[in-house]
């Protein structure tokens, strides 16, 4: 197992280099003045500002030196400076607690609701409940979640006044609940479908008969035998949904004005503050890679068939 983990760790290195290279190249090496690119066509850049950016990214040196410098910076937590000469890392420091709270809450909702509906659909396969869950998940897939978020904000927040419309003044969990629910819609259909398929596959497995022949009750058979096997692929998928979920925070935090990382990136886009967008995106990409790594290692740990080979 240790060898497997080590191999997986080594495989992550070129991916980290590759993704950061793509980001860096897209921003600083494409034709055109990188400073003006970051500012977008509509924003004037003061000479002092341009100078500060050039110095920070060593834009006068050869590309590889720039990239090396940028990588070294990333390793030390330096995600660049923005047009207000604020280090992006300070924005990150202010924003991450909000995002982590939102992401964790979303993730838990996603896991509970997705797995719950998936199991329910599988146990009731071919009946009305199953069709309702499958149909519902297709509908949810079709309606973009940022639309749902607006509708929820207008209906639940503005018209009914049940939840705060925006901001985090009411703290956790009230301010986070509606945004987390909307963001969870992104992953619930997929998790539910995979759980359903996986449970169905194991529901008629022969080891289920063995458990029944032992005299085990329905619940014990379902939880101890069917779910224990079915959830292995689901755990892996749940890890991967964290990636989509992180992209989702940009829209959701933007819409609900939750001052997290996604909100900073959202504001960065609206105000043509390019370095913020790039810096935060880079952090999100690196986090995503780390999560993938953890999920892969976890997968090996929970599936003895891989672990012991």
């Amino acid at each position, binding site marked *: 197992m240790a060898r497997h983990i080590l191999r997986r760790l080594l495989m992550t290195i070129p991916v980290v280099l590759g993704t950061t290279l793509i980001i860096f190249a897209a921003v600083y090496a494409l034709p055109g003045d990188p400073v003006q690119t970051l500012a977008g066509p509509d924003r004037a850049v003061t000479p002092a500002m341009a100078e500060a950016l050039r110095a920070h990214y060593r834009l006068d040196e050869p590309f590889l030196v720039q990239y090396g410098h940028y990588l070294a910076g990333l390793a030390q937590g330096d995600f660049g400076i923005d047009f207000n000469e604020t280090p992006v890392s300070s924005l990150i420091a202010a924003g991450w607690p909000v995002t982590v709270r939102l992401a964790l809450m979303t993730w838990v909702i996603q896991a509970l609701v997705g797995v719950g509906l998936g199991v329910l659909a599988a146990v009731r396969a071919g009946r009305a409940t199953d069709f309702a869950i499958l149909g519902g998940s297709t509908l949810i*897939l079709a309606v*973009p979640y940022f639309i749902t978020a607006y509708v929820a904000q207008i209906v639940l927040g503005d018209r009914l006044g049940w939840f705060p419309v925006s901001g985090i003044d009411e703290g956790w969990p009230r301010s986070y609940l509606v945004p987390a629910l909307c963001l969870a819609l992104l992953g619930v259909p997929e998790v539910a479908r995979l759980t359903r398929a996986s449970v169905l596959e194991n529901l008629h497995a022969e080891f289920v008969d063995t458990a029944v022949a032992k005299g085990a009750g329905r619940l014990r058979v379902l939880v101890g035998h069917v779910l224990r096997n079915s959830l292995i692929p689901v755990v892996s998928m749940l890890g991967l949904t964290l990636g989509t979920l992180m992209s989702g925070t940009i829209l959701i935090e933007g819409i609900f004005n939750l001052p997290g990382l996604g909100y900073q990136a959202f504001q960065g886009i609206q105000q043509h503050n390019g370095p913020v967008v790039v810096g935060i995106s880079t952090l999100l990409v690196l986090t995503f890679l780390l999560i993938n790594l953890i999920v892969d290692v976890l997968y090996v740990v929970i599936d003895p068939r891989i672990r012991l080979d």
Partner: protein
Amino acid sequence: MCAMAVAPGVFSGWFGHGDPRECTLERSGQGPAAGHPFGFDIQGCDLYSNVVHGTRDSLTIGLLATGLSFAVAVVLGSLAGYFGGLVDQVISRVMDIFFGFPLLIGMIVVLQTFGVHDVWSVSVVLALFTWPSLTRIMRSSVLAVRSLEFVTAARELGAGTLRILVRHVIPNAIAPVAVLTSLSIGAVITAEAALTFLGVGLTAPAMSWGVQLNAAQEYFTEHLNLLVFPALFLSVAVLSFVLLGDCLRDAFDPRSR
């Protein structure tokens, strides 16, 4: 039934009437009126014709970006799957790198640096981040077909590599990719709407549903129709492609249901 699922999305362009750019500011944000079933947008333009015309750019981007990544996937996936070895290694590692991006985030970074935000540039960026998932399926599908007997037979009969690939391997390996492609069109349309809504996607002269949502985002609370109608069209279009994908899957693999 499958045809019915796609029809409204594809053909809604034909039902356009009126000029979407003919606007009267006095009618800004007004609700539905005679001849204007969806009401008016902030500029006082007829929302119905706007939304209907938006179909064209949204669908074009969906088809164009997916078409591009489908083409790349068929070529690279076949090469990686059929030849294996170094070719496969290189293609697979590059895919790994692209899989390292959460979908929307990679697109945001690249689009952020683009000067032009027209249908073509947005489609290219969307394709840049959607080809790997199609390629991966194509690769494993080709891997499975490669070792089948009729391919071995063709090889032993002395058929050229290109002939084997084009005549035997690709036609037999393409079904799973086709299914995923249909689902991918829906995903791309959604992604375009999300990116444009954020402000890094298409910009004004283009007229996708995302552009309309972006332009109206500050007025949703007062004028719900500005949100609902473009969103409705968007969802129906995405749903069509999802259902089409389901149909294709059932058609190719009767086992799955």
